[in-house]
């Protein structure tokens, strides 16, 4: 079928070309081309690439496609791109043992070539995990490389839980341009009907209605040449294939079983391919590529054809494809597994699936690795118990890494039963320890404790090894999280001793982290040394998760204890490390703590920005959401802004099930503060008491102090025992000492809060701080207290005074500005003010600089907004356009 001109696609092509121009100017761009299957994403991109060929500054265009395999090959689109770049890149990628090597080689190769480079990744809704990570990796490093990254996907298949969704959300917003394709209009469908002879004009409206203007459906329906419009795109495709000869049909059936495209040699190896049969296939819209491979014009057509192949015949064909692929050699294991599985050839699945999983693991495509283990297990009934158990253990670990906790638990239980039956106590104990960890993730604390004890009981009977050391450290972690310091230190100590004796660095780092965190909470200086040692070991040995965890615990403790400088340092290092190693959940967790830290320092704009960046992310975990919700709610409450309750209600609902003081306490205090600022403190007492009840098990002086001081402010009794110094002072009635302590710490809002308990001078000082911070709600409280204590004429605030001329314009500049507002030119201003035109020019540039505007018009607008304009022209905002 001849290629048709693209209809109604000019503006989308223009949008892509604008991105190309930006990339040519050295900016990074990411274009997201979206729309349902058949909307014409590929056609648009082909046309875009075709036009680039004749462009003056012809860019390098690289194509990569994601595959519709059940379990996609890791980094398949990058292999495509590497082949086009050539050189040693394809070999380097194929042989690389580590993923970061692959990613760095890819970005180097992209940056080295011609500028601009247009890299296209098609069908990202099918992307494997490693490819999704690659998109994120490239997106973050694109800025100055002069690369346009085009990503196409079916946005209607990408729901908020689809992994691509969070990847797109993480791309730098300033670089992203969206190109959402739309269906064809009725007029466009009518013109296609006109072009396809032999149809009545009345059909066009019906065709448009049934196809919804989907270009692929329209084309297929027109080509099907049925009396009526086929009801679905599948029917249209099948109708076209119905007229094929037997030989052509055999080719179509075979091609339907090979996602993507079928190579010429594979086709020939499995079925006879007379030229006229191939011609027939091309006549129904299949495509023959330059390399001799044959493909359906669209995956929708392949699916429809695939469904038409009867199951027994399909199995036989898959077996023949598999045999041909094996004879050919050099085929990735992923592809062999796909056909072996569909051929029902268990021996072949078990031969290739572990290799496919291993490759996926090396490239950190953990979702795909889990899928390969699951495929192998479907064919593993006849395997010996130990081999099946190993497959379940592999599956469990990959599920754990991809946050499929329920699946991981189920797989661990299978492995446990198999190991137990085989009498392998070491592996039994290790599976028990894993079940403990997984149960904690699952929110099942009781089961977690039971498994932890069972693991130690089981492993203690054996000679001490790494499994036992890990079981000890797991116990330490559980007790640390539950706030049981003594038990945590006890188990942690055993873990450290055994790990040191065995030389197990990773376990040592893990155990030191647990012990150090506990000791820090206990205000034990040695805790920091433990944590820093844990961090050092992790950094030296490339234990990325452990390093991120150590940074997080160091930073979060510093934030909780108001050690502002230390917190700033740990946060900066930890976030930079997580970014550099693409440890996204850790980056989000630390960013949430940074929001809290900004709030403590009084930088509310930065606090709100950090919190918002977490809350906007669909996959942020509860432990990251809680501090973000609290921080944003407090910024709003303190500014007197709306939208507080929905944030705090969500935070409360997320925090309560954790049962942990470190999550529940801050939410209770924030709810108390919001209620207190609103003048209804008594409504917060119940929440504060819930949090206070947790204090005995988890004695953190800063959280407890915060809870107790809010109990007092809200009118209840508060106990200063166990509260950190600034809180204890306020509870004891020493507002002066409390305020001084907060001032020394550098937490201005906390200082203002403490000053509210003081005399007139203290209240005035509090008011000053509030005005500087923009704390309208607390300023209101301070003014009310001042008035109540008999002080008259409480100023409305510094805001009013400074706002009159906050930019510090000189008298002459103000005069010039007044004339600018009236629209006078420089010559006229010069005449009126009796100065030279050159002087006016100087004044004007000074004004532009001080007002941070670029033109006289903008300066005039700014002057009017700021009330800086002397002249009154009498109009009001919005009176006239």
């Amino acid at each position, binding site marked *: 079928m001849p290629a048709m001109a693209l209809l109604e696609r000019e503006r989308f092509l223009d949008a892509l070309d604008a991105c190309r121009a930006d990339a040519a100017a050295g900016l990074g761009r990411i274009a997201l081309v979206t729309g349902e299957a058949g909307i014409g994403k590929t056609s648009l991109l082909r046309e875009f690439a075709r036009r680039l060929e004749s462009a003056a500054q012809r860019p390098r265009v690289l194509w990569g496609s994601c595959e519709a395999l059940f379990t996609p090959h890791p980094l398949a689109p990058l292999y495509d791109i590497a082949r086009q770049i050539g050189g040693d890149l394809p070999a380097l990628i194929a042989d690389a043992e580590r993923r970061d090597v692959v990613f760095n080689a890819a970005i180097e190769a992209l940056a080295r070539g011609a500028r601009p480079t247009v890299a296209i990744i098609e069908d990202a809704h099918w992307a494997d995990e490693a490819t999704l990570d690659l998109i994120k990796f490239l997106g973050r490093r694109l800025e100055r490389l002069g690369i346009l990254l085009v990503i196409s996907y079916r946005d209607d298949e990408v729901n908020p839980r689809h992994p691509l969704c969070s990847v797109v959300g993480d791309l730098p917003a300033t670089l992203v341009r969206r190109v959402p394709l739309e269906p064809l209009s009725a007029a466009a469908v009518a013109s296609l009907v006109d072009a396809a002879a032999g149809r009545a004009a009345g059909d066009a409206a019906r065709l448009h209605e049934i196809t919804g203007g989907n270009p692929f459906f329209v084309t297929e329906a027109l080509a099907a040449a049925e009396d009526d419009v086929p009801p679905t795109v599948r029917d249209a495709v099948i109708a076209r294939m119905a007229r094929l000869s037997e030989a052509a049909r055999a080719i179509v059936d075979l091609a339907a079983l090979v996602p993507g495209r079928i190579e010429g040699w594979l086709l020939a190896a499995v079925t006879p391919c007379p030229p006229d049969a191939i011609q027939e296939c091309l006549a129904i819209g299949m495509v023959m590529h330059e390399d001799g491979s044959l493909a359906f014009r669209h995956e929708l057509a392949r699916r429809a054809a695939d469904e038409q192949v009867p199951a027994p015949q399909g199995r036989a064909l898959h077996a023949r494809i598999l045999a041909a692929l094996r004879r050919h050699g050099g085929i990735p294991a992923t592809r062999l597994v796909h056909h072996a599985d569909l051929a029902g050839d268990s021996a072949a699945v078990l031969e290739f699936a572990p290799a496919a999983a291993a490759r996926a693991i090396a490239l950190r495509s953990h979702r795909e690795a889990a899928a390969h283990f699951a495929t192998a297990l479907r064919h593993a009934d006849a395997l010996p118990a130990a081999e099946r158990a190993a497959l379940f253990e592999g599956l469990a670990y990959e599920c754990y890494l991809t946050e499929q906790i329920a699946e991981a638990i189920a797989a661990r239980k299978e492995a446990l039963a198999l190991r137990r039956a085989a009498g392998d106590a070491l592996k039994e104990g290790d599976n028990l320890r894993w079940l403990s960890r997984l149960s904690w993730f699952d929110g099942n604390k009781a089961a977690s404790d039971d498994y932890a004890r069972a693991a130690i009981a089981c492993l203690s009977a054996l000679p001490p090894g790494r499994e036992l050391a890990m079981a000890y450290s797991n116990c330490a972690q559980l007790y640390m999280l539950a706030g049981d310091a003594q038990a945590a230190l006890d188990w942690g100590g055993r873990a450290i001793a055994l790990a040191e004796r065995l030389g197990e660095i990773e376990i040592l780092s893990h155990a030191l982290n647990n012990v150090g965190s506990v000791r820090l909470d206990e205000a034990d200086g040695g805790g920091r040394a433990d944590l820093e040692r844990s961090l050092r070991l992790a950094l030296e040995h490339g234990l990325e998760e452990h390093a991120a965890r150590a940074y997080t615990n160091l930073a979060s403790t510093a934030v909780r204890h108001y050690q502002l400088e230390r917190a700033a340092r740990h946060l900066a290092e930890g976030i930079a490390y997580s970014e550099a190693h693409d440890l996204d959940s850790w980056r989000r967790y630390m960013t949430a703590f940074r929001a809290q830290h900004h709030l403590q320092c009084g930088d509310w*704009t930065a606090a*709100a*920005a950090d919190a*918002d960046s977490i809350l906007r992310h669909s996959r942020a975990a509860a432990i990251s959401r809680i501090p973000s919700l609290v921080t*944003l709610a407090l*910024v*709003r409450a303190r*500014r*007197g*802004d*709306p*939208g507080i309750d929905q944030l705090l209600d969500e935070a409360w609902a997320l925090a309560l099930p954790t049962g942990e003081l470190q999550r529940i306490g801050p939410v209770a205090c924030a709810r108390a503060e919001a209620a207190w600022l609103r003048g209804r403190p008594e409504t917060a007492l119940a929440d504060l008491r819930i949090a206070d009840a947790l204090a005995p098990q988890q004695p953190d002086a800063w959280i407890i102090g915060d809870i107790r001081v809010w109990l007092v402010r809200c009118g209840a009794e508060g106990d200063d025992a166990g509260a950190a110094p600034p809180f204890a002072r306020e509870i004891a009635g020493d507002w002066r000492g409390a305020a001084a302590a907060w001032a020394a710490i550098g937490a201005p809002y906390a200082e203002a809060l403490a000053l509210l308990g003081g005399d007139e001078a203290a209240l005035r000082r509090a008011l000053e701080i509030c005005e500087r911070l923009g704390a*309208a709600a607390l300023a209101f409280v301070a003014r009310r207290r001042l008035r109540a204590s008999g002080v008259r004429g409480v100023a409305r605030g510094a*805001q*009013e005074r400074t*706002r*009159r001329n906050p930019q510090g314009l000189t008298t002459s500049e103000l005069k010039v500005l007044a004339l600018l*507002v*009236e*629209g006078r030119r420089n010559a006229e201003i010069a005449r009126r003010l009796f100065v030279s035109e050159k002087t006016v020019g100087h004044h004007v540039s000074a004004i532009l600089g001080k*007002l941070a505007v670029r033109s006289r*018009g*903008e300066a*005039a*607008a*700014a002057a*009017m*907004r*700021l*009330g*800086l*304009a002397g*002249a*009154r*022209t*009498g*109009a*009001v*905002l*919005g*009176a*006239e*356009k």
Partner: protein
Amino acid sequence: MPRYLVERDFADGLHIPVNADGAKACRAMVDTYLHDGVTWVHSYVSTEGNRKSFCIYDGPSPEAIRRVAAKTNMPVNKITEVRVLDPYFYR
């Protein structure tokens, strides 16, 4: 998208000329706001000295309202989330 009523105080009154410059000033403000996803619906200005304005915006959050205000040097005295009440709806 939430709707906000933003109260602003102008110590020396708010003055926008009824001419091309005034139109341009408003247009520039509308565009700046839109860039951050905030739509300026309209405003009421106190008749006495133009000292106070009540502006209606549709925007994603109070933070966005404050962000665009800072960009355009507009004061913000109070932000209230509001919704429409149409008295004639009850007729």
